[in-house]
Structure formats: C-alpha cells, structure tokens
C-alpha cells in the first residue's frame, strides 16, 4: 500500500498551509498548588464516587490488614507478580489464610484458568492523580497487563507520597515521553457502563471491584 501512502501524503502536503501554529497555554492543566492532604482527600473522594474501595494502611504494614480484608470478603485466592517489589514481599512474608498464586508464566499457558477461576490480582502503581482520581499503572515484563484486567477484583497499592495534582503534571515530572512502556494505564475505578438507559452498572468487562491500599512506606 505504498501507493496509498504516497498519494495521501502528497495531497496533504500540497494543501498544507504556511500559517504559524497557534501557541498553547498549558496553565489550565498545570499543578494546582494543592497540599498533600488535599490531594489525598480529593483522589479518594473522586474514586469513591465511582465505587472504588480503600484500605488505609498508612503508618502500618499492609500485609496483615490485606489478609484480614481478603478473608472477611471471602476472596479465595490472590494472584501476584513475583518479580515486583510487592510480589517479593508477598512471597516472603505472606502468612497464609488466602492462597497466593504466582503469575510466573506467559498468559497463554493459563489463559483458561485466569479467565474462569481467578478471583483477585494485586499490582503496584506509579502514583496517583488527584484532579481526576486516577491510578498510574506501568506494565512490563514483571507486571503483566492482564493482572489488573482479568480477575474480578483488582487490588492496587498506592504510595500517598506519589500523588500529583494533574495528569499533565504527572506525565511531565515522571518524564513519560522519554520512554513509554508497551502499555501505560490510568485506572480510575472498577469497570463500568451506562449503555443501558444511562443507568450505571459496575463490572461489565474488567474488574467488578477495585481496592486501593494506601501506604506511606512501601
């Protein structure tokens, strides 16, 4: 289809204008000057408004409270990524009660099981965005994409010291443009739809529940 390419680009070039591109003023998406308390309060409020659940583990270790929560909710198993910092801690220190399942092979090798039987997946985050109430997730060799997508419950650890005011601020300060992962995600709640009569329903294709564990030391 090189012909199509040449023809299309040729037509566009023939018509392209000589005008000076208009200037862009990014003030409106710039940091808001919010305090750390306000950022956290806002992120939590925005995410709770779309049914995100929170487990506040600031000032304590998160392993114990997570285990209690999973037992209380009757979650039968937790999938984790063994090569991540979170995964290493889970593998070393988990005290049982809820079985851990290691995501240590290619998805294709256990796709059926993942789709049919998985209950929960736990991931880390690269921070959060207060303005929109969003988590930032990088996926890579250690942290698979499907871990936050296929299991009906997604659990994400969020360090409250890595919150940004705005999306624009987060991408600039973390220098995303210098090297993007294959898949970078913003996640702002559990999966939802309003396609039937504008009525909100949660858990359509992605996770039905999203639990954010707030921590201040990872």
């Amino acid at each position, binding site marked *: *289809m090189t012909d*199509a390419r040449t023809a*299309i*680009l040729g*037509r*566009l*070039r*023939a*018509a392209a*204008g000589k005008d000076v*591109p*208009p200037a*862009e*003023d*990014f003030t*409106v*998406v710039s940091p808001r000057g919010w305090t750390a308390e306000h950022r956290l309060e806002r992120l939590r409020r*925005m995410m709770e408004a*779309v049914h995100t659940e929170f487990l506040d583990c600031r000032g304590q270790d998160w392993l114990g409270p997570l285990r209690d929560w999973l037992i209380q909710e009757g979650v039968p198993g937790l999938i984790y990524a063994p090569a991540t910092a979170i995964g290493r801690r889970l593998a070393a220190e988990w005290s049982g009660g809820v079985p851990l399942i290691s995501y240590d092979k*290619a*998805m294709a090798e256990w796709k*059926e099981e993942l*789709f049919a039987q998985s209950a929960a997946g736990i991931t880390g985050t690269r921070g959060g965005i207060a303005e*929109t109430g*969003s988590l930032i997730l990088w996926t*890579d*060799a250690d942290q*698979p*994409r*499907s871990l936050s*997508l296929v299991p009906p419950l997604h659990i994400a650890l969020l360090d409250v010291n890595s919150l940004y005011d705005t*999306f*624009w601020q987060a*991408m600039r300060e973390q220098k995303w*443009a210098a090297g*993007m*992962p*294959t*898949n*970078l*995600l*913003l*996640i*702002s709640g*559990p*999966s*939802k*739809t*309003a*396609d*039937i*009569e*504008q*009525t909100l*329903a949660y*858990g*359509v*294709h*992605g*996770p039905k529940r999203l639990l954010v564990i707030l921590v201040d030391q990872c």
Partner: protein
Amino acid sequence: MAAAEFRDAATRALADPQLRANFRRAMDGLMTKRAAMFADRDEWTALRSLGAAVRARSLLQLPELLERLEAKLTENGVHVHWAETVDQGNAIFKQILSRHDATRLVKGKSMVSEEIGLNHALEADGIEVIEADLGEYIIQLDHEKPSHIIMPAIHKNKQQIARLFSQKIKDAAYTEDVDRLTGLARQVLRRKFAEADAGVSGVNVAVAETGTLVLVENEGNGRMCTTIPKLHIAVMGLEKVVERLEEVPPVLSLLTRSATAQPITTYVNMITGPRRPGEKDGPEEVHLVILDNGRSRVFADPQLRNTLRCIRCGACMNHCPVYTRVGGHAYPGVYPGPIGKILTPQILGMDVAGDLPHASSLCNACVEVCPVEIPIASLLVRLRGEAIRPEPGAVKGAGSHADPTEAWTWRGWALAYRVPALYRLTTFLLTRFGWALPGRMPLLKEWTSVRSRPRFASQTLHELARREKVSNQ
C-alpha cells in the same frame, strides 16, 4: 439515495413517540451533567482554547506528524498501513487476518470501523466479528447501526433490550434489571475475549512524539481487545494525530467531560507497541491502519479543514434540537447530528448527502459546546452553497443540488433589489395580488404541505412608513 432518505427517515422518527421520548430523556440528562462539569467558565474557556490550539496545530503540521508517527510506531514494532478508500481499508484487514488464520475477532468501539463497514466486509469472508462494547453489542444483536457516536444504543429502552437479550442470548431469562442484563453480556463476552484470534480497536489520539495510541473507555472491553488476543489491529482517521504526549491531557479532559460528563474515563489505555521480550501478555503483533476516505480532500480547503479538528465527543449531537427529535438513525452515513451534517456530505459527496446541511436551524447550540471550537454553523452555510454552486467546487458532488427554479428566483430577487422601479413594482404586485399565487407552485408547495401558507401584508413597509410620516432617519 440519502437526501430523500433523511427526509423520510426524519418524518418517520418524528411520528414515533417512544423513540422521541428515549432521546429526549437521554439528551436532557447529558446536557445537564455536562453543564455541571464545565461550571467554572474561566476554566472552560482556557481549556477549550488549549484544546482548539492543540487540534489546530496538528492539522497545520498534518503530513509531517503522520510521517513522524509512522516512523516512531515502526521503531516501536507497530506495523503501519495506509488506506485511501473504504475498500482499501477492508482489504488491509483481510490480508493481516488471513496471514494469521484469524477467524474470530473481538472489537472495541470504533466509529472509523463503522465508516468502512468492517464487520460487513469481514463477515462476508466468514470471519466472526463480535462487538464488545455493551452498547455496540446490543445493536449488533439487533442488526442496527449506532444511533449516537458515544452511546450507540441510546435509542433503546431497557424493556427493548431485555426482550432482545431473552431472544438472542442462549438460556437467558427475561429480566429488566440493568445489573443482570450487564451480567449476561459479561458472561457471553468473556468467553469471546478468551477465544478471539484478534482484537480490533479505534484510536482516540495518536502521539507522533512517542508512537503511542491512546484509547479511552469505561468498560474494559477496549483493554480486553488490545491485551488478550495475539493480534491487535487499530484503525483511525488520519486526523487523529497530535505532536506531543503533553497535548493528550487537555484533549482527553475535553473529550470525556463533553461526552459523558466524566472527569476521566475508567481506563485511559496508552499503547506504545506489541509485547516486548520477557513480557507475559499483550499482543505479539500490533497494526495501525490510517484511513483517508475523503479526509485529504476536506483538508485541502482551509475553511472546511476545521471539520477535521473534531475529537468525536458527541456534545454537538447531545445539544442539537434536530438530533434530539429525529434520533441518530435518520442520518445517512455513520456520524449523526451536527458533526455528521458537516462531515458526511464531504465524505460521501453532496450528491448523496447534500441535504444534510439543511437539517439545521443554525441555532448555534453545537458551536457553543464544541470543545475544539469548530465553527459548525458557518460550515453548514458554506456547504449549503457548495450544494448548489454550478461549478464543481472543493467538495465532492458540489453543485449536484442546483435547481434552475431556485437559481432564477434568486436572480430575480437580486435584480429587483438593484432596480428601484422594479422593486416597487414587485412589492406592489405581491401585496395586492400575492394571495392569488397558487399554493402548489414550486418553492411554495413544500412549505404549504405541512404549514399554513404565509399571507402578504396589504401594504408594503415603505407605504406604511410614508403614511405614518416616518422620517428616513
């Protein structure tokens, strides 16, 4: 075809109280919620100018940006294809799919795939295409086209959907409970995601700087389509590119707030290539099909080019008094509402859709809400002119609606306004004998078919003014 089609379809839609009620309710809700999202006028103005500047900048550098995007994507391991026409677009899909022996597809919501009629083309070759967005899935079950670019099944109420599901989904019991209906679709589609050979998606923004395809969605079906199958094919109109990653946040903020009054969608999915060595999931191959289908011709005209700024938020249709009353199915082509009225005639040609620019009262509601400042009303007026311009103009099929009666009438009108004696004679005759004009005469009969006929005053304004001794000042 389409000109008469719109008229007839609009007339039919107007006579359907259920349809009108479904749209009215939905549009009222959307307008109220959107207004709340942009309650801070200063912020709205600033964000909107930024969004308009981002889109205007992309168009100014469009050929260079597309080349940069292609180079960057190729570097990232994404295969880039170019399609001038709908047929070329479908042929590219078929080639890729047949190389992979892919016969089962899952597809996220994509208006461009509707534009090229992808499902139809692939199904003709025995390939199964399952629409995975809940709204798209609903209308696919009923063999319909989307009636809204953001909420494709907005014309249906839950009773209609309940009936549809109980008839079309195996072992599904009739239920009007929205959570249970959603659960039914989840069950069916999860299997499809797991089994699919390939996933298809659209693109909301493509970033030249990083070679990133950005997709927004709430359901997770877009992530499923672009994550689970071994092969991912994305398709986009050639206008979707922006230069830098930092231009994405303002565009997405305008898009999601204008479309569904959300500060952000549940998922913002940024894809910068296929699975890398060592990664455990993600597609092994990613393709991008860049579609022209008349866009480069739209681009050639400096005024009409503004059509290509569109970020497909749907706000113009949510606020359109015509769309609210006739619904999305009355419009020919796949884009209904004001954006459709300016885009469809340019893509399909004035000969096919030249009536669409007239399906507007020029009330300007769309112009006020458009987040990227597209002067929709001026473009509608421009296209009305293109429809009757005797010389073939910038737009495909220009002049195809030229009507000698109309042309002569305007020529007479112009002459009367240039020659005072003729003007006086005409107005004298019309005030005295205008009543005698037959209601069935050309130009008048369309009006009188549904409205009472206008009555001429018995004296002209000039005569009245003279009688009242109104001075010329």
